[in-house]
């Protein structure tokens, strides 16, 4: 009899809530944290889409203009290839500013706002 009673008491204590508590707004906090952590991926995707669209537009306009004024386009291409180093540097700088604006600064601001 005593054994059965002990079993009952022990099993009851196994099923008793252990009393660990989370803050009442835990779910909301987690959702916001997750959204913030995932935000940079969205920003990066947007940056890549926009960059792709801009480059495509540039290619289409250049291609179209080639039929309108072939000499000008060839002259522009020659100018770019003759000044390849500064052109690459400027392109890199513009791309960095664009990337910083679309992704990097947003990521840093969200990190700072957390702290």
């Amino acid at each position, binding site marked *: 009899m005593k054994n059965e009673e002990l079993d009952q008491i022990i099993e009851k204590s196994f099923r008793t809530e252990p009393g660990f508590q989370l803050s009442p707004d835990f779910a909301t906090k987690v959702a916001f944290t997750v*959204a913030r952590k995932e935000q940079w991926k969205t920003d990066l995707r947007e940056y890549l889409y926009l960059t792709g669209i801009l480059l495509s537009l540039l290619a289409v306009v250049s291609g179209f203009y080639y039929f309108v004024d072939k000499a000008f386009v060839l002259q522009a291409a020659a100018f770019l290839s003759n000044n390849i180093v500064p052109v690459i540097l400027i392109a890199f700088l513009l791309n960095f500013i664009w990337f910083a604006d679309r992704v990097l600064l947003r990521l840093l601001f969200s990190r700072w706002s957390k702290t």
Partner: protein
Amino acid sequence: MQHFVCSCCQTSSMNDSELISQILNGNMNAFTFLVNRYQKLVVHITGRLIQRHDELEDVCQEVFLKVFQNLGKYRNECKLSTWIATIAYNTSINYLRKFKKGDEVDSDDSAALRNLTEYRSDEFEKADLHQYLRAQIELLPVQYRTVLTLFHLEEFSYQEIEQITGMPEGTIKSYLFRAKSLLKEKLKFVVDEDSLKLVKEISNEK
């Protein structure tokens, strides 16, 4: 990405697969609801394993972050609760290995079992029996606490516990049996007939 629209009424009636597809479509409100639905399960597992109230919230948050990041990989091969419990278990074990009690996780039970406190009968308050038992459960080795929580508190089957922890079914049964026998032995030491009656009365009142 952030859709914090008020769709509480819709999400509350959703089943798990509908909830998952909503989350994968970027509905953060559905994710909030998923956290609300499973936070008790996660807090029971992580709480019992890590035993740190001050870090419990951070570990639980890490669990749900992993749930969110891996939700796309979830296939309906097991219940969502089993899948989330697996993540909670692995995260807690990694936490123990990394920050706190690596020895406890990796060593055999004998050392941890020796840590179980010995109470003398005359120090023992009758009404504290349930509290005493809860304290004794917390002193059990981590594997024992895990299977006790999953089996008794969360009512997972042996197969589900096997999926969650990777322990063979025989080991799970053995841990459950040994945990129970151990606590019974300890109770026999501390409890006299009178206090047993008193506890039974309290249990029945609840």
